[in-house]
């Protein structure tokens, strides 16, 4: 079994009141292989974050199944049985690090917390490990006593990353982890992800709307629109040969930092054209298109 995570037909409908149901996710399926960086792209409101939160077990599913290392964790009973394993091995990093870190805790407490909560805290060993984690993410020991409010956004995101890798998880879900950072800081964080991924070998779901970073970082990409995956393929295949009209539109909208290509045409796509009963078909090996 090569897949660390598989999602089957995930549906997430939020009932607001008797008259209004929001269909956030309408039946999506994908697998994440061990050691892979899987990109999930789409525009705001397409359901990317809902998928992330559903995987983490923060929402109960309307229907569908989620398997983590072969265990069906979407089932409450199985989830509870494997709770320790899931908590240790699945971590999430959110977009806004200022609201993800407790402002009243020092950095060292923030990083120590997951170790304590999972009964993995050992005074001498863990304190050394915290120093090591800070160094890994490019901070130093002097940050231990600081509060999240005292450090910059890029540094805060590094603390959030240090916290998520503290338990050396097998799967990390990063929900727009760099969207709120400056360009030069973005590059620093991307390099950090790459380095850590190589060293620890964890699998990674990278959720983003910035396609140039996805192209650079991910092995495989899935494009989402209106709660559906419309195309999934290895990164280069998807960028070189997009087949679904929405993917084409999305790729044509990426601003290219080259004035020569400034007049390239933006291809518009009307989301209403998307049919509701299509399925993902494999057009070439590994390349699936919704039709």
């Amino acid at each position: 079994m090569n897949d660390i995570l598989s999602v089957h037909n995930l549906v997430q409908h939020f009932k607001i009141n008797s008259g209004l149901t929001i269909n956030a996710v309408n039946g999506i399926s994908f697998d994440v292989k061990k050691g892979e960086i899987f990109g999930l792209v789409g525009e705001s409101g397409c359901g990317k974050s809902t998928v992330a939160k559903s995987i983490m077990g923060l929402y109960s599913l309307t229907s569908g199944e989620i398997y983590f290392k072969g265990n069906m964790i979407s089932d409450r009973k199985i989830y509870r049985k494997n709770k320790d394993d899931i908590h240790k091995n699945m971590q999430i990093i959110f977009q806004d690090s200022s609201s993800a870190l407790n402002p009243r805790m020092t950095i060292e407490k923030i990083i120590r917390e997951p170790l304590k909560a999972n009964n993995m805290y050992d005074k001498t060993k863990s304190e050394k490990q915290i120093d090591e984690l800070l160094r890994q993410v490019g901070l130093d020991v002097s940050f231990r006593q600081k509060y999240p409010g005292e450090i910059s956004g890029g540094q805060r995101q590094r603390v959030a990353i240090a916290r998520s890798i503290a338990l050396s998880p097998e799967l990390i879900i990063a929900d727009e982890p760099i969207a709120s950072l400056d360009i030069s800081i973005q590059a620093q964080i991307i390099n950090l992800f790459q380095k850590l991924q190589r060293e620890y070998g964890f699998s990674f779901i990278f959720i983003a709307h910035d396609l140039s970073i996805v192209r650079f970082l991910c092995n495989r990409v899935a494009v989402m629109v209106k709660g559906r995956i419309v195309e999934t393929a290895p990164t280069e295949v998807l960028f070189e040969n997009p087949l679904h009209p929405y993917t084409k539109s999305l790729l044509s909208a990426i601003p290219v930092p080259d004035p020569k290509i400034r007049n390239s045409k933006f291809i518009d796509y009307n989301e209403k054209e998307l049919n509701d009963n299509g399925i993902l078909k494999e057009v070439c090996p590994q390349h699936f298109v919704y039709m």
Partner: protein
Amino acid sequence: MENILEIKNLSLSFYTPSGEIEALRNINLQLGKGEILGIVGESGCGKTVLSKTVLRLLPKNAKIKNGEILLNGKDIVPYSESKMRGLRGSVMSMVFQDPMTTLNPTIPIGKQITESILKHSNIKYNEAKKQAIEMLDMVGIDSPEKRFAMQPHFFSGGMRQRCVLAIALASKPEILFADEPTTALDVTVQAKILDILLKIRDETRISIVFITHDFGVVARIADRIAVMYAGKIVEVGKTEEIFYDPRHPYTWGLLSSLPYFAKKGEPLKCIPGMPPVMMNLPKGDVFATRNKYALDIDYEKEPPIFDITDTHKAATWLLDKRAPKIKPPKFFGGECHE
């Protein structure tokens, strides 16, 4: 090309209890008629403060230390607040990043646009309404008559930003300051808004100052680009000059940190460290500590602006005759190497 706006030696500081923040330091900049000038830089470099200084939308603790802002040849720095109010909207307008905080959530979109038109001209309401509907049509909102009476919460983020654009353009200004107008939007919506801005420029010959941190966006829209760092313009030139022949190490650093120029599997090249806090700035070039090409003199003396061509200028000692020759990184026609 005649200059509609000319900024000469402009310096501005904020005086806070913890000290003086030198937000703008000796800015020189021109904006031609019908031109789109892109201002690029990281957050905190002073790009927003620059446009707010021209419009004088500044808090009380801000002070213009010296310099001139020539609007159509007249210096507006000594202007009184009431005289400035006459310029805002009618001659210069500004569009901000977040459309939800710009619009009043309780007032219908149409009314917010006619308000701007009625304020700046002596026409009747019905005429203003007609103009407002035309404006909505121009920024690409379909069935504008129906949408005229709707409140902002009926609109998506992209449509709201178009409405903000319609308000800013309704009084037919000569200069539009667009401060990261597409940063909060999706890429497809961003592409549409950029197309609209280009179309409006071609139709009305309006001058646009486009502030952004995205090199992809300026490559698409700008005629000229100014790169700002720590309150200074470090490099300015035509878009082609900045992309194909950048001269300042900071511009090199920004360009090489873009994933577009990176090879897959290799780390991105990044600028080490962080942008400085603009208080108690060190002696010499502020960028020196993050600059791997820094010379000894960079720690002693601030570099002057060197002319490379008539349009292309950069502030780095590397352009001095006495500086050692270094091989600049190349970004096009081959991979980004150093």
